[in-house]
């Protein structure tokens, strides 16, 4: 654990090749259990102190942006589930919203409610997995199973309504693919009741644990200014006190009709980011509770043309995924396929701050910091 003075007085830039020549370069990954995927980190160490971390990307690059250029506006949405597969729903949502913006399709109210409920369920599922994996990074194995117990319930709900557990492809331009399953509302309510009691177990198990606190408090410090300059969004930005919740700043769908708070922590360390996410779990439940009984009757899918053609121009939308801000930018030449697609993914920007956060700390802290960044590697590479 570092004191505040130690963090502030730490030099910002360290030359990895200066010093007594005792530097050691080790490779973490691409196949390493702590990196949660094929991320390759080249770490320069002096003893146990990290001098420099260089992430090497590209091991799971599938050129999704290029693939989308040859797919029609209905077809390209399914590919985006494979970017940030833990918030696949929200990725699909962003793409569907961009197409709707270009085509000026009015989404029915029922579809908007369904979309927001599904988004929040996805956010809970994603944060659950992160919570388990984060505790496992720090050596606690049991929380992983606790987290998956609740996540499984969400997956079952998704399976029943959307037809798949992880890559749903449920959002289509104009609404959602199918209506809610008749038992959906009851199942979600049951889940909320169960989850509210279980989330207190999380605090008992991990949050209050002295070992966990010692390993995360003061570790991986990121100041507010640095978070802004690195473009950190989502819980990473909010853990440093940057107000960056797209649901609050640029509300989309029915987010302006629900009451919820943006979770801000000013600590800037790993523990703050942890707290932001755990608090977001409770906020997501609050949003679902407000919507689940009020889903209006009506169509779930607007009538659209058989072939979608976006007018010539540029279209940009952004949504808040479980990891931060996802932007979808489409350049259209007026044809049936996009001319160019660019995804602004949250994982890439958050990873870029890793080097700055861990310089000067111990190698054990690298895992704690990476855990709280909540990296999904296909989201970084795309």
């Amino acid at each position: 654990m570092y004191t505040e003075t130690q963090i502030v007085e730490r030099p910002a830039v360290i030359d990895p090749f200066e010093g007594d020549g005792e530097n050691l370069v080790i490779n973490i990954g691409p196949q390493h259990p702590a990196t949660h995927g094929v991320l390759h980190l080249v770490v320069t160490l002096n003893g146990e102190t990290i001098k420099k971390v260089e992430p090497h990307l590209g091991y799971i690059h599938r050129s999704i942006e290029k693939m989308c250029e040859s797919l029609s506006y209905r077809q390209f949405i399914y590919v985006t589930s494979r970017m940030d597969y833990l918030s696949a729903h929200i990725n699909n949502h962003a793409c569907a919203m961009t197409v709707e913006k270009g085509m000026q399709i009015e989404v029915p109210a029922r579809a908007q409610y369904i979309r927001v409920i599904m988004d929040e369920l996805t956010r809970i599922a994603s944060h659950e997995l992160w919570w388990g994996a984060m505790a496992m990074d720090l050596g606690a194995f049991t929380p992983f199973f606790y987290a998956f117990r609740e996540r499984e319930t969400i997956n079952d709900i998704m399976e029943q309504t959307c037809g798949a557990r992880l890559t749903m492809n449920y959002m289509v331009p104009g609404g959602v693919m199918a209506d809610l399953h008749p038992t959906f509302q009851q199942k979600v309510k049951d889940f909320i009741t169960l989850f509210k009691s279980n989330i207190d177990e999380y605090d008992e198990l991990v949050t209050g644990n002295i070992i966990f606190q010692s390993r995360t408090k003061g570790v991986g410090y990121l100041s507010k200014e640095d978070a802004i300059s690195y473009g950190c969004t989502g819980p990473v930005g909010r853990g440093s006190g940057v107000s960056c919740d797209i649901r609050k700043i640029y509300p989309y769908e029915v987010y302006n009709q629900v009451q919820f708070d943006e979770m801000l922590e000013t600590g800037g360390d790993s523990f703050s980011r942890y707290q932001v996410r755990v608090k977001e779990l409770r906020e997501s439940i609050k949003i679902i509770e407000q919507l689940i009984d009020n889903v209006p009757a009506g169509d779930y899918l607007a009538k659209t043309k058989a072939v979608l053609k976006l007018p010539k121009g540029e279209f940009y939308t952004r949504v808040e995924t479980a990891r931060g801000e996802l932007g979808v930018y489409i350049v259209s030449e007026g044809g049936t396929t996009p001319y160019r697609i660019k995804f602004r993914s949250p994982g890439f920007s958050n990873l870029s701050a890793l080097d700055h956060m861990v310089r000067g700390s111990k190698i054990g802290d690298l895992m704690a910091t990476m855990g709280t960044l909540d990296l999904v590697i296909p989201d970084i590479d795309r």
Partner: protein
Amino acid sequence: MFIKEYLSDIYKATKSLLTGMKRTGYYFVHPKEIITEQYPDNRDTLKMADRFRGEVIMPHDENNEHACTGCTACELACPNATIKIITKFDVTPEGKKKKALDTFVYHLELCTMCNLCVQACPTDAIKMGQNFEHSVYDRSMLLKKLNRPGSKIREGVE
């Protein structure tokens, strides 16, 4: 004062660890609250959700008739070239030529179960099946012909 703080830290640390262990111990003595599915053993009782997307199937009725007109809407809707439709020309009793389905080729190994083909079908000839156990020993066995041998189009489907 130093000793007092030191002791209180130890007390708090031990308490936090014991709080966590209490939770673990609770589940140790309440095994019924643990939910684990023993997958290969529960195959007889395992039922997937109705909308679960495991593979594309083409339902045939008792007369070995399907509803596919061979319009290739699904082939056009598929993002991965999973579906290939081969058509033929039937001769109607009036002596006219009519386009009909010859072979519905389905590449299961390319399919991502995105449901776009089922949505595109105007006659509801295909739907998603619930079978998810697709492992085979050879990749070529994943290439499937969905219309059964000798099947023909149902009367009245245009």
